[in-house]
Each structure stands twice: as C-alpha cells, then as structure tokens.
C-alpha cells in the first residue's frame, strides 16, 4: 500500500510523458513537471537532457528551490539562444502550462476574452506557437475544471490538431500534442479525429467526476486505467533528492 500523495502521483504522471523521448531536451514549466522531468531522467529515461531553468544543462539533478549559487554539475551551456536552436531542430519535448486547453489540444496562455481588447491579459503566447509545430508538446494543468478545459480556447497560443490540419502539411509535419496531465488524470489525443481522450485517471477519480469538470465531451475508452502509483524508489527520489522541501504540495495540495 503506497502512501503517495496526489502531488507525487502527478509528478510520476508527468515523468511518464517523457518515457521514450530519448536524448532530447525536456523543458518542464512548473514545479511538478520539473520534478517529473528530472525523475524520468534519473530513472527510466537516462538519456533525457534537462536544465536548471536558467542557462545550464545539468549532469545531475538540483533540488527544487536550490539557491542561485548552489553547486551544480553543468554538462553544457543552455542560454535562450541555444534553446531556440533546439526548438528549431525538434530535439525537445516541452511541458507547458495552460490557462485554457480544448478538445483538440489548442492551448491558451495569452489572454481571456477577445485578443484585441482582452478581459484579462496573461503572459502573451510566449514560445507556444513555435513549440507546438516544431516538436512534441505536453501540458500540465494543476486544477482540472471547466474554466481550464474549455470547448474552445480564447487565443490559440499552442496549436492543436484541428488548427494544425487547417494550416496544412508544413504545420503538421512535426506537430504532436502528447499528454495533458492534470490533478485528475492523464489525457491524450490518440483517437481517429485527435479529440482528447482519457488515458488514465488518478486513484479515486471517476469518469463522471472528470467529465463534469471538463467543458467538452471526453473520449472514454472501454477500459479506463488508473494512473500508476510511484514506486518506492521513485518516492524516495522525489522526497529526498528532487524536492526535499516539499514545494510540490504548493502546486497540488496533499
């Protein structure tokens, strides 16, 4: 019987997004995706490349919240210019946040309401348009509800499957929205029309509950798996090595 918290189950679900990625740059945005990427790299995906969130490619993980002057193993230089080069090359798998995400995987971090005069201006599109058409992209949504999972996003920052198809083969060539991880489950687009499907639900979450919290009909497989629990070794790594100060519970409360 595992005593894993929901945050730890989410961290492992995020790590799973990079399973099979190989020797590419994992770019996690947020605490739990960062724990996930580093966990994948030091366990089942040993060639995965990851940075410190600043300009260093790390040869060994730093704990979340390490001070700026913490001693670190730097195996390569990763300033933004190099990261952009890696985006163009395709050798990257990013996990971004999403203020809104829709059934075909369009993501919004730019604004709520009409773009011309938004009700709420957010970050801007950042790197989402380029990320989504150049290399695999996954998303992390710490609070699953109908405000985040919407029928249609207000501003397509990240490109989903319908918009990529409408834009043509050059937009589709390297487009791949991989997983969406939330505090309720894991979702993918492995359906004929690339509509969002339940991939697994975290322990105790029901299909009805997650459908209620989602603003569009989810594709429900005949058999809905339960998200796997962290192994004892993974729990130890999360608690003692990757996030000893428990920053993860600020993103997903216990």
């Amino acid at each position: 019987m595992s005593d894993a918290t929901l945050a730890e189950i989410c961290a492992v679900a995020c790590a799973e997004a990079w399973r099979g990625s190989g020797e590419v740059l994992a770019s996690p945005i947020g605490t739990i995706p960062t724990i996930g990427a580093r966990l994948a790299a030091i366990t089942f995906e040993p060639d995965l490349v990851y940075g410190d969130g600043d300009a260093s490619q790390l040869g060994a993980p730093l704990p979340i919240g390490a001070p700026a002057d913490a001693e670190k193993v730097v195996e390569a230089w990763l300033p933004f210019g190099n990261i952009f080069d890696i985006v163009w090359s395709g050798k990257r798998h990013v996990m971004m946040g999403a203020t809104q995400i829709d059934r075909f995987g369009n993501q919004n971090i730019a604004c709520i309401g009409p773009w011309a005069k938004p009700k709420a201006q957010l970050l801007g599109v950042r790197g989402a348009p380029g990320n989504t058409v150049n290399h695999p992209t996954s998303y992390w949504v710490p609070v699953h509800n109908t405000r985040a999972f919407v029928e249609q996003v207000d501003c397509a920052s990240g490109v989903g499957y319908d918009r990529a198809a409408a834009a043509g083969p050059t937009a589709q060539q390297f487009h791949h929205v991989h997983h969406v991880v939330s505090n309720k489950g894991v979702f993918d687009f492995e359906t004929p029309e690339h509509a969002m499907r339940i991939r697994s639900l975290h322990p105790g979450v029901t299909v009805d509950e997650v459908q209620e919290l989602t603003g569009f009909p989810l594709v429900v497989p005949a058999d809905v798996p339960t998200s796997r629990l962290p192994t004892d070794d993974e729990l130890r790594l999360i608690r003692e090595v990757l996030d000893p100060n428990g920053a993860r519970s600020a993103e997903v409360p216990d």
Partner: protein
Amino acid sequence: MSDKRMTEEDVVGELRDGMTIGIAGWGSRRKPMSIVRAILRSELKGLTIVAYGGPEVGMLCTSGQLTKAVYGFVSLDSIPLEPHFRAARQNGTIEAMELDEGMLQWGLRAAAMRVDFLPCRAGLGSAVRDNNPDLATVTSPYSDDEYLAMPALKLDVALLHANRADARGNAQYLGPDWYFDDLFAMAADRTFVSCERIVEPGDFLKEGPEASIRISRIFTDGVVEAPYGAHFTHCVPDYQRDEQIQKEYADSAKSPEAWADFRAKYIDIPEADYRRVIGVGQ
C-alpha cells in the same frame, strides 16, 4: 579614435517621437532601466517598443509614451503577469503585435541580415496569424512546404545593458546568458549600451573570457556608465533582482496615486539619487 561615452540624457536626446526602439534583456533581467527612467522623464511619445518584455514595457505603457508593443511575452519573472502592461492591454490604450518568442528572434535576425523576411514554422496554425493579418506565408522554391514569412523587425534604436564596456563601445556579458542583446544591436540603425562599469580594453580579459565580449563596437554608437543601471531587474553576477522594489513597482498598478508615489520616489529623480534611494550610493 572615437570616444562614445555619454549620459542617459544624451541617449534620450538622440531619440525622436514615433521611433521604433528595441529594448534588450529578457523579462525582468538585465534591462537598461536607467535609460528607460530617463525616457520616462522626457517628453518623448508615440514609441513602438520591441522586447522580450519586462518592467520597461509596463512603465512606458503607464507613462503613455508607448503607442505600440511588439513582444513574445511581458513578464516580471518572479511576478509572472506584468500589471501595468495588463492594464494597458485591458483598457485598449496600446496597440499590440504579439509574436511567438522565436518569431521575434527571427524578425530581429532578418533585420540584422538586411533581408525582408526569414521563413519559419513558428506561427503556423496559431492565433498569432489571426491577430496579425499582415503576416504572410511563403512557398518553398525547393519543395511544397509553406512557411511563415517572418518580416524583418527593423529598429531605429536598440538599448542594451551590459556588465562591462569600453569607451569605444565594445560590450561584455559576465552572466550566463546575453539573451538576444546581440541581435537587437545588429537589427538597429543605432545602438546605445549602458553598462555597470566602463573598463580599459586591456582589462576585459581580467573580467571574463574572450567569448564574453559579445558585442563589437561595430554595432554600437554610445556607451553610458550606469552602475545599477539595470536595477531593479537583475544583472548577474553584479547583482540579483531586487524583489522588494519589484513588488513595490507591481503594487503601484493598484491606483494612479500609488503609481505617482512610485514615480516620484524612483523615477523623477537624478540617477545618482536613485542609487541612494535603493541604498547603494554614498
């Protein structure tokens, strides 16, 4: 041998209403804030600002001097959403050209190469195309691929803040990332660099390795010695971001009175007084 040393006020004297100005750095990191403060003290208006945006964008929105912002994001990093910029967007008081971060890089690169555009995938399929109807695509002459044709973002002036520079305008970056400062300099007709300290050319290698002297005087037109010139944004390794004053800045978006107080305390004062106010000057 040219001596390019000047003051922030001299830089502002070279600027004109309606100019397109690139401001280097990234978010709330190594922004040429002492020059930005001097712009706020001036009568300049109608500016288009091109940036990986931080507080300089918000300040120029609030002063009413910014007419149009060209950006991939505007953020204070530790405070993700820039409140002054948000207010301007939500009140519809500024024009915006919102781009993918890589498209912005490509636009600067095209300007630096003196070509009209550069092709890329970034932007295809996204709202960037809907929101910028002038953006065109281009068909490859070698295949059936159809790319976005990112237009050159030609700058009248670029403003940079470096760690060190010499009087002739070579500039050195001692932190781990010079962001896209080099591209801003090359995309502009004229570039002004502020720096923490002006050094003799012979002393650059005492400060850092050869590769850190990123910007050649070929691309610069003026140098301002501005200790704490990036403050409250960070300028590592010289100093970290001043999170407390950044928070004061963010909080000043709550009311016109709060902004007036912030402005009176930190902006409408001589630069030497700024250093005293933040507790580093004599």
